[in-house]
């Protein structure tokens, strides 16, 4: 569903943000993309959804290159950014309708979906209010609902759990599992390693723009935890750190 081939992104001819990165997300995968701050996660994600052009490589979505047919690629994916900067001058319902119009979602279908998701995320009462009056979490909920309206084949999310209340996080996790069972693919970045470990069947760790670990979660974690795998990949010995503190 998503294939990143030798992706390289260099900012202003100097900083290599992503260096020859390749990975594959299959149908039904929940794929966690992990890395420290500034590792290149957001740059990779933004390149995948057509927000950033890249210096080298290619991104295939559903077998189609984002460089060759960006319109098709964008029509089958849903993107949730790390910061829900959305149109504050619109009401929640106006925004959802706008997104549904762009994706040409049938009127009755969109109504049913808005009704269902808004009820699940407990935001139905606020749909008539201006987005400018929403809290960060409410904006995040609206972005998530908007992303689900056109039933995308691939969801690409940058830190989707930030700002969500525990119930909304729980609902989103269940939705992600359910949608992947139906053949959708999810690729998301996160710093919450426990969530990634429990939720995802595949994990990739990026460090300084380079992919250092990638594979099935079970195979990578084995008898350890994802936190250990991450710390090892970051060339840090977690035992030494913990031991140092104890001393």
């Amino acid at each position, binding site marked *: 569903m998503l294939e990143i081939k030798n992706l390289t992104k260099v900012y202003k001819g100097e900083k290599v943000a992503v260096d020859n990165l390749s990975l594959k997300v299959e149908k039904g995968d929940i794929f966690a993309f992990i890395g420290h701050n500034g590792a290149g996660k957001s740059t990779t994600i933004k390149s995948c*959804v*057509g*927000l*950033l*052009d890249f210096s080298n490589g290619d991104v295939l979505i559903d077998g189609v290159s984002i460089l060759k047919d*960006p*319109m*098709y690629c*964008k*029509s089958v994916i849903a*993107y949730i*950014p790390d910061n829900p*900067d*959305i*149109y*504050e*001058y*619109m009401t*929640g*319902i*106006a925004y959802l*309708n*706008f*997104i*549904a*119009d*762009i*994706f*040409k*979602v*049938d*009127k009755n279908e*969109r*109504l049913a979906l*808005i*009704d269902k998701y*808004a009820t699940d995320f407990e935001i*139905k*009462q*606020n*749909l*008539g*209010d*201006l987005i*400018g*009056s*929403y809290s960060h979490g409410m904006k995040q909920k609206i972005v998530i609902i908007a992303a689900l309206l056109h039933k995308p084949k691939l969801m690409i999310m940058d830190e989707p759990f930030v700002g969500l209340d525990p119930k909304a996080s729980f609902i989103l996790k269940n939705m992600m599992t359910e949608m992947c069972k139906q053949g959708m693919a999810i690729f998301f970045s996160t710093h919450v390693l426990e969530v990634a470990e429990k939720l995802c069947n595949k994990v990739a760790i990026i460090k300084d723009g380079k992919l250092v670990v990638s594979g099935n979660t079970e195979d990578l974690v084995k008898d350890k935890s994802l936190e250990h795998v991450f710390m090892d990949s970051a060339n840090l010995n977690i035992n030494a750190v913990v031991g140092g503190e104890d001393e």
Partner: protein
Amino acid sequence: MNNFLLLLKCDLKKLFAPKKDGKIGVLIAYAILAICILSISIAYTSIFGLILPNDSKHIALALILGIYTIFVLFTTVGNSKILFGAKDYDLLMSLPIKPIEIILSKLFYVYLLNFLGAFICLVPSVITYMIVVESGAITLLNALIVLPFVPLLPLVLGLLIGTIINVVISKVKNKTLITTILAALFLGVYFYFIFSSNYQDAESDEQMAAAILSIQGVFKIFFGYSKGITGNYLYSFSFIGFGLVFAGLYLLILSKCYKQINNIIFSKRSSANFKFDKDKNKSTSVTGALLKREFKLFFSDTTIIMNNLIGPIFSLLLAVAVIFKGGINGLASGLEIEGEEIDIAELERVFSYIIKNLLPYIPVLFMGTCFYSACCISIEGKNMWMVKSLPISAKSYFNTKLLTHLIINLPSAIVCVLAFGITSNAVWYDIIIAIIFTLSYAVFDSILGLTVNVRYHNFDWATTAEVVKRGTSVNIIAVVGILAIIPLIIIQILASFISPYLGFAINFALISGLAFLFYKITYNNDDEKLLKM
């Protein structure tokens, strides 16, 4: 006081920091804009200075000050977010800084910008005045003494109106409607005074100037300025005193309620009472959805509205005035002043020449004050990721921007042409030609603005004023808009010796050709351009 200077330094740094939307281009645009304002000021003072009788040529200065004040007033209303609802409010209030220091730094920042404007606008006018009336250098010295106090009154008044609008719209859901109504109301009241003034009753040139400036009380302040710099120091002191007292009072009131006003503005309005009505929920086409969103964006911000609707509103008001005054000749007879010898027949002949040869150029002048297409991409700001991540082609996106600009600009321009044409008994085909020409200029104007904004865009702004008022693309279009109209009028006047239609044909071909060229430049590799923004 250290904090005041630190805050001011921060704001000024932001103003002069190298912009993302162009480096050297910004400076060039500012310089050309300054030259244009300067030239207009000189031309204006010269014309009025020559028309008015010798003993009252100082009215020319009062007029230029009046115009400058109105300009500052309008722009400050739109700029009031520097003081209220500012994005750095939370940060600044959480720091150990006294509110009065924050207020002073913000006010002084706006004041400095306006002082710069006053300097560019008024000093050349005073120098021109000195040349026209052959007065000594003392006039310039007097003007320079009064100059620092010139921006005080419009600044405070503008911020006061801006505060009221901000407070009112923060309380209502439909900010769009209320802002537009308030802005239109404000303009309407102003123009009511202008067109209800009785020019015929003016017994002296001072009264005529008072009538032109419409509000007698306000005029007296401008009059004080002009009288003051021509040697009557009592007027100078009154002018300075009035500005200082007004600013001081405002500062005093503001220091008491700055926090409260910001709390009102920042308090989020959330009714949480949405009823899901399936019948009210309508779906629309992609173009319809984009257009709807574009208008919501346009009406979402006072600065955007104030800076782009002034031209169309002026155009409409002029049309209404022409209709009510019984055509352009009615306006001509309205200029009759008791005791002054004005050849009405000659004026009517001039106006009939304008109708025959320059009819479409009347709304075109107002069109030049709407810069929406020149800032329409920049105003997306931090929301630009949405446009880029949605399946929207660059062509549909750009088309929506152009269409919005035309919808804002065109109807009022056509009404203006029709009003002037019909009330002046112009031939029907002259009116049709004028409408076609107006249409072609509107298309050229919108594509030119878009082309420049595609090249010089800036999404990294804190307030819309940074891109709507001071953006590189807007500055460039302001200059080009002024400069473009001059050769067109010259061609028209020269060609009219043969036939006015020849002038229209040449200019139409010129404008259409340029519009096509800019269209090609903008729409070539448009998807790639959008991606790289």
